[in-house]
């Protein structure tokens, strides 16, 4: 029996959100790039930016928020889970809303960069505020450079990866509709 169109869209949307959420978790916990100051940055922002550019605000918000929240729970930072859910959810939502505001389905490069920069500010500012309430605004200042670096790399790689995925796997456009 043929399923109605709405039902098929629901199934694809749920599958898309769940898989991207899992990818965010993996990219947060496993995929790490070493930095010049002997630390590591995670690539969760790459997936959030990529999801926002290709799949829109709700998928990006849920995958970004829930994915980073789960990563915090699994990674032993349970106290950060609700905060990450809000901050990265908002980051994904805003990036998608700005990047797709004028370009229809496909985001244009300038808007993508602008959206990415706003996403960087939301993420860095959000964690600064959250850190300020948790352990004081003075100590929270320490995290700003690393968060800016992580979200900046996320935006650059997010744009590059979005273009690359569209070339490597054109059916992704059908999933984005």
């Amino acid at each position: 029996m043929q399923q109605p169109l709405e039902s098929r869209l629901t199934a694809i949307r749920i599958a898309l959100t769940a898989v991207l959420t899992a990818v965010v978790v993996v990219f947060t916990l496993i995929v790490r790039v070493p930095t010049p100051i002997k630390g590591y940055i995670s690539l969760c922002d790459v997936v959030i930016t990529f999801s926002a550019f290709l799949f829109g605000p709700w998928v990006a918000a849920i995958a970004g928020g829930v994915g980073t929240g789960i990563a915090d729970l699994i990674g032993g930072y349970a106290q950060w889970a609700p905060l990450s859910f809000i901050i990265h959810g908002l980051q994904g939502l805003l990036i998608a809303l700005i990047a797709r505001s004028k370009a229809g389905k496909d985001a244009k490069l300038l808007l993508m960069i602008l959206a990415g920069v706003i996403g960087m500010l939301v993420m860095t500012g959000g964690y600064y505020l959250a850190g300020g309430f948790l352990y004081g605004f003075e100590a929270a200042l320490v995290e700003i450079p690393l968060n800016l670096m992580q979200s900046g790399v996320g935006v650059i790689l997010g744009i590059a990866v979005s273009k690359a995925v569209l070339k490597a796997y054109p059916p992704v456009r059908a999933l984005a509709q």
Partner: protein
Amino acid sequence: MTTSTFIAGKGVLYRTDARAKLLALILLCVLVFLPVSTGGIWILFGMAWVLAYHATGFRQAMQPVKSILFMLIIMTLFTPFTYREGTVVLQLGSHLMLTREALENLSILMARFLSITYLCTLYVWTTPMADINLALRWYGLSYRAALVLTLAFRFIPFIADSFAMIQDSHALRTSAIHAGKKTWKRKIADVVPTVTAALVFALKSIPYLAMSLEHRGLGRLQKRTSFRHLPARGGFLFTQMVVSVMIPTVLWVLFT
């Protein structure tokens, strides 16, 4: 990759219902931000640590401190230097090093941060992830949102394993192309093909997952039934909910 945060142990927290614990956790996290005495927050942290110690042993109970140790050191270094007024505790020559107000502020911030860390960690250590999902459902999380959570947990190990394989095969390719020491920019550029391949691999699984969901009846008009239910552990749920509200209330009255 292990996705479970549950640690087998003993104690009252293992016998308490996930919904009641969640309510108590939220109320206790709110409590530490209310105008209560610093000693009260330290007592709350002490109680949480004793529960963690009783449930999982000393080694495991110290894990949350290890995970936030860096931030505790940063707090100790930065906070005293930002409070320059009040009763002097330590002065080196003409340089004011520490005031009583700075120490009090540092104490509040540390007690609050440690308490929240231990309360949240205790919840995920003593509650299986499936129970947390069902507890969230009980509090109003939609069926679809809960389904997304469940599916995401199922897919995490699969995607992690696939990513490891993709990373290994790309490592062989890039080492042949860029022999010698890699710069930081080169390392980031090398990530793009690996990340792209991993994303394409994950995206290709979506149509199959969607088809499986359709075959299981997702999207049909009839109301869906739940296969799993959360039974109230250790007695009546109502009683446990009342106790979960009473504990933070009593602590608030005692510590203000």
